[in-house]
Every structure is written in C-alpha cells, then in structure tokens.
C-alpha cells in the first residue's frame, strides 16, 4: 500500500485547521481499493471481488452503492470496516476515516477507532446474540469502550431505545421475542449509542416488509438530520438507495461504473448498465406512466473469477464495440462532476427515469 498525496493534503489541513474551500474534507476516503479472494478447493482460483474503487463520503452525507450479486458492493463495505483481514484475502489501496489510515492500524489501534464507524447488516438476527437481552446487547459495545458508569448504563440503554422508538421495557426482552422490524431497531440503537461518524448499512431493509422498511428508512434519515452521521448505504433496490442517498455509485463486476448525484444517476444515467438497471427495476405506477420499452439484458453477470477483458459489462451491453473488448474504460468525470466508466459516454443518449423532485 503506497502513501498517496492525499495523505499529505489531509495532514496539511489538519496542521492549519482549515478545510480546503473548494473540496470539503472527506470523512471517508477510499483510494484504489482492490480486494481479491482465493477460493477453496483444488482450483485455487482468484476472485476479483473489487477492483480500483475510489470513493469519498463527506460528513453527514449518504453515498449509496447499488449493484447486483457479485458487483462487489458488500465487499467494499467489509473492506472499509476492516472486516477483511484474513489469509485468503488480499486488500490493497488506502482507507482513511477522518484522516486516520484504518488499513494501517493494528487490531488494537483499530478497536480504539471502532466507535467512529459502525455497521448494520441485512439480517438483524445475525447481529444480536440470542442469549443476551436487548439491554445487554446495547450495553456490550459501550462497556468494551469503557463508557460505563455503574447504574448510569441503564439510563444510557433507555435513551438508546428511546432514540429508535422502543419502550424501556424492551431492554429485558430477548431477540426471539421481537419482530424483524424491532430487531433492526435494536441494531440501529446499538450502533448509534456509540455516536459514530459513519455507519455502513448493508441491505438493512431488504428482509423487511414494505411498511416496516419505510419506518427504518425514516429513522435513519432522522439520525442523519439530528446527528450529522454519514452513511455508506448498500442495497440492490434502486428505490431504497435513491430515497436515502445524496450521491449514488453504481457497481458492476467489482468496479464502479458510474458515480453522480442521485438525480444525475437516476434521471440522466451515463453508463449503459445503469440505464438497463433503471429500466429493469419494477415501478409501482399505473401503466400510463410506464410508457417505456424495457431493456431486457441477455445472459447472466460474468464470473468474477474470469471477468471479460476490457469493459466488464461489454458481454451484455447493447452498445458494445471492438474498443470495449480491448481497453478497460477509466472512471472519468464529465463537465458536471458526473463520473462514468464508458468509452462512449459522450456519444450515447441514454434514458433514465422521469422523476419529480428527488434529492
């Protein structure tokens, strides 16, 4: 892992205590992140899970990551949270949180930083210990951080439950006594009790019924308003991502293929994969508002063990030309800062979703 010029500029900003006026300093800065796994079994194949991903998240901002299975979006979150330190995985690139290079910290040093960054997962059951009461689950990380003060801990738990709209009596319950929505609230309470600056949300509403989903999304939005917390929000659901995110990154086969404001990506996509994704996402609107021809992509997503040469999407892209097979298109900014990795982005006229308002 090489030290880049970014670190120097952060150090400068820190020394003078002024943020660069043009670009507000990022809370999270991911530079050239690549993640490779080696599979088990005789083939010992290399899985290119994430390749050259660079993203930034400002304080209080939500960056949504959208993509299908094998796109690498969850792997990005795991790499950011330093959960990928193992033998069969190779992580390169730099990950800085508020100027601290997380990838260079020892496990012990990392533990001291943990409270600044929390993660919430899809399955609320996985994250809660079935033997512990809700109160104990919320207390545990606070105790590890030494934020305990005898009986005042009970008050902290009560306050944490209150922030997610759960009654104090819930503290005595065990996970199996709660509904899916309540369990996800407990997970949020547990994460937020540590007052993190960044929360990584991986498919946090995917397992929930739609009316409960809305509840949880409301709650996350309220936390952001009140505490200025930043989110890296990962979901396969375009509607969910668009409703919470200021900016959206689209991933395909381990690479970021497009990054822009939510409105840019949804209304005026610049990558053919984004266009297809927007077109495929079912819309709960009457047919008179759905007067569009759907783009049905052929075939499956290629294997990250043996990705196609050049552009990863070219095997399913209806605009592909010879150049797409030969060269990997770099992620390049357009005039309005809208990034796209497509050789023909300036020539294509892609259709997005006609949406009113938006973020």
């Amino acid at each position: 892992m090489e030290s880049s010029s970014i670190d120097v500029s952060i150090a400068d900003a820190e020394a003078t205590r002024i943020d660069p006026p043009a670009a507000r300093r990022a809370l999270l800065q991911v530079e050239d992140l690549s993640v490779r796994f080696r599979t088990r079994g005789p083939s010992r194949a290399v899985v290119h899970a994430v390749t050259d991903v660079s993203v930034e998240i400002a304080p209080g901002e939500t960056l949504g990551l959208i993509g299908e299975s094998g796109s690498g979006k969850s792997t990005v979150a795991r790499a950011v949270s330093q959960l990928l330190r193992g033998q069969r995985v190779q992580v390169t690139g730099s990950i800085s949180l508020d100027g601290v290079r997380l990838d260079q910290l020892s496990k012990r040093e990392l533990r001291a930083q943990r409270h600044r960054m929390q993660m919430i997962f899809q399955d609320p059951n996985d994250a809660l210990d079935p033997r512990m009461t809700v109160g104990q689950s919320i207390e545990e990380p606070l105790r590890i951080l030494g934020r305990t003060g005898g009986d005042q801990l009970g008050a902290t738990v009560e306050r944490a439950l209150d922030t997610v709209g759960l009654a104090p009596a819930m503290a005595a319950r065990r996970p199996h006594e709660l509904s899916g929505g309540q369990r996800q609230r407990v997970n949020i309470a547990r994460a937020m009790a540590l007052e993190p600056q960044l929360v990584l949300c991986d498919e946090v509403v995917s397992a929930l019924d739609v009316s409960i989903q809305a509840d949880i999304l409301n709650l996350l939005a309220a936390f952001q308003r009140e505490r200025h917390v930043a989110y890296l929000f990962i979901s396969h659901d375009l509607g969910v991502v668009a409703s919470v995110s200021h900016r959206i990154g689209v991933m395909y086969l381990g690479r970021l293929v497009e990054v822009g404001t939510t409105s840019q990506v949804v209304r005026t996509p610049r990558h053919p994969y984004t266009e297809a994704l927007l077109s495929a996402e079912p819309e709960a609107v009457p047919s008179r508002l759905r007067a569009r021809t759907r783009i049905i992509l052929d075939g499956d997503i290629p294997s990250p063990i043996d990705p196609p040469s050049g552009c990863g999407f070219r095997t399913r892209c209806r605009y592909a030309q010879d150049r797409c097979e030969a060269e990997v298109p770099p992620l390049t900014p357009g005039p309005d800062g809208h990034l796209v990795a497509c050789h023909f982005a300036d020539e294509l006229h892609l259709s997005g979703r006609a949406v009113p308002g938006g973020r």
Partner: protein
Amino acid sequence: MIGEPLLEVRDLSITFRTPAGVAQAVTGSSFTIAPGERVGMVGESGSGKSLTGLSLLGLLPPAAEVSGEVLLDGRNLLATPERELRAVRGREVSMIFQEPMTALDPVFTVGQQISATFRAHRGVGRAEAKRRAIDLLGEVGIPEPARRFREYPHQLSGGMRQRAMIAMALVCEPRLLVADEPTTALDVTIQAQVLELIAQLSRDRGTAVLLITHDLGVVAETCDRVLTMYAGQIVERCSTDDALEFPRHPYTSGLLAAIPRPGVAAEDLRSIPGRVPSPVDLPPGCRFGPRCDHHQPRCDEAQELTEAAPGRWVRCCRHAELDLPGAVEMIG
C-alpha cells in the same frame, strides 16, 4: 375481453388449531382467473397469500382445515381425492417458488427431472421426453439447452435454475401457473427476464397466472388485475391500474405511500403504524381498523367485500367517502 373463468375460488377459508387458539390464516377469499389472464396477489408476510397459492394445488399442510371451493373448470379441487389431484398437479396446475431448490432435486440432472415429469404425465418414450425437455429449456431462454440438460442444478446460476424450474412447471403445458415470489431471490436484471418470460407464456399459450408477491412494482409490470391481501382477507380486488392510481382501501393506499422510489426522500416515506394482528387474535371488525388513519366506530363491525364500481371490489365501509392517495400522488 375476459372470458369464462378457468379458476374460480369461492369463499375459501383456511384455519389451523394452535395451542393459542384457532389461527385464521385465510378468511372468505373469492376470486377468478380467466385463461391468459395474469392476476397478482400482493400483501405482507403473514397475509395468507402463500397458503392461498398452495390450496390451489391441494398442497396445504395436513393440519390445515379448509372450507369453500376451488373450482378449476368447474371441478372442486378441495373435494378431489389426493390420487386424482396428482394427475392435476403439473398437468393442469403448476407452481413455481422463490427458491428453485425446493422444486429441483439436487441428485438428478435438470434434464432427468423435466423429462421424468413429462413421461409420468404424458406416457411418452424416453427419446421423445428428452427432445421435448431440451426444446423447453431453449424456450425459457437457457443457452445451450442440450448441454444444460445433462447438468445438475448446482451447476446452474440462480437465474438459470429459476428458468429450469419454470421449464419443469411448464412441461405439461398447465392451464394455471401459480408463481409464489418467483423473482424475489433474483437480481433485478434477471428478474426482468423471468417476468417477461412469464408474461410471454400467458400471452402465447393462454396460461392463466396467479403471481404472489410482496412487491407492487412486480404486479404493476406483470399483472392485469390485483388482489390486495391483509391479515387473511382480500381487502381490494380490481385492475392493477385502478389499485395503483385510485386505491379505495386505506391499506392499499398505505402500501403505495411506503414504497421507496426515486424522487421520494426517505423522510417522506409513510410507514403504516402498528403491526399486523395475530391470526389467533384478530380484531372483530375491520382487520386493518386498529392501524387505519380513517377508523370510525362503524369500522368495528365486520367488513364485507363490496362492489364499489364495476369490477372494483373493496372491503371498507368508508370507501365511497374517502379520497385516498395513490401512486401518482406519491411521486408528486
């Protein structure tokens, strides 16, 4: 344009005895599906939609107590002996599920399973069954069908397994296809392929489809009509466009306001307060009443599904006076 119904469900109720009391999983469901028609059944977990689907094939768990009629071409499947039902399943009515591995056997090749089904129902020879199976794998969009015929389910991708299951469900050209969350586990671009395939089958072959899903978007893209289920009852039954644009039941309207969509900020999504009632302890009146913004004392009496306009049925005594927001209001 809708001809004689192929399927007519009359007053279907499904209950279970539990230690806590009688669980009313489905209560008084009535609906029809015509040949070539695609009907969506939408609702959240525990609304009774999957049990309704299973009842159409006589596949309810033994503990279930069922009443009412499930008429397929006038023949009541609920009164048909199991031995005769076996001939109906696969040949007349087929079902596909969210998880293809519930239907595909991991120890047989995809081809063996499809051709065995065909031979069992049609009594054709091995070679004929094989040819038919390969044709069908090609028809559902599986590339290199002759090669895939010899492969085991685990060798296929998720989307291809789903297609293989659909091929198996279609091998005998059933007249009714019950699809329970058929695309929920699939990626969105693969979902689009599978939904297109289902729509095409019903158009080309006149297959009637009951599509069970939690996703109103999937219904909107695929179905002519929709049945909205809440706590075991159909609360609204109408054309898909009517449900989306002018919902007459507060629950349908509530679902539409809760769906996250581009252009609607997370803080503006409206959740439905409270929780689905327990099937052993249902409210005596409107089952949605305790969660409804429009609740009045007369809602505490049992609600009937009534015809509000031609083809438009609602289980809400206030339907005529309420002006409920639909999808168009949500997107501004």
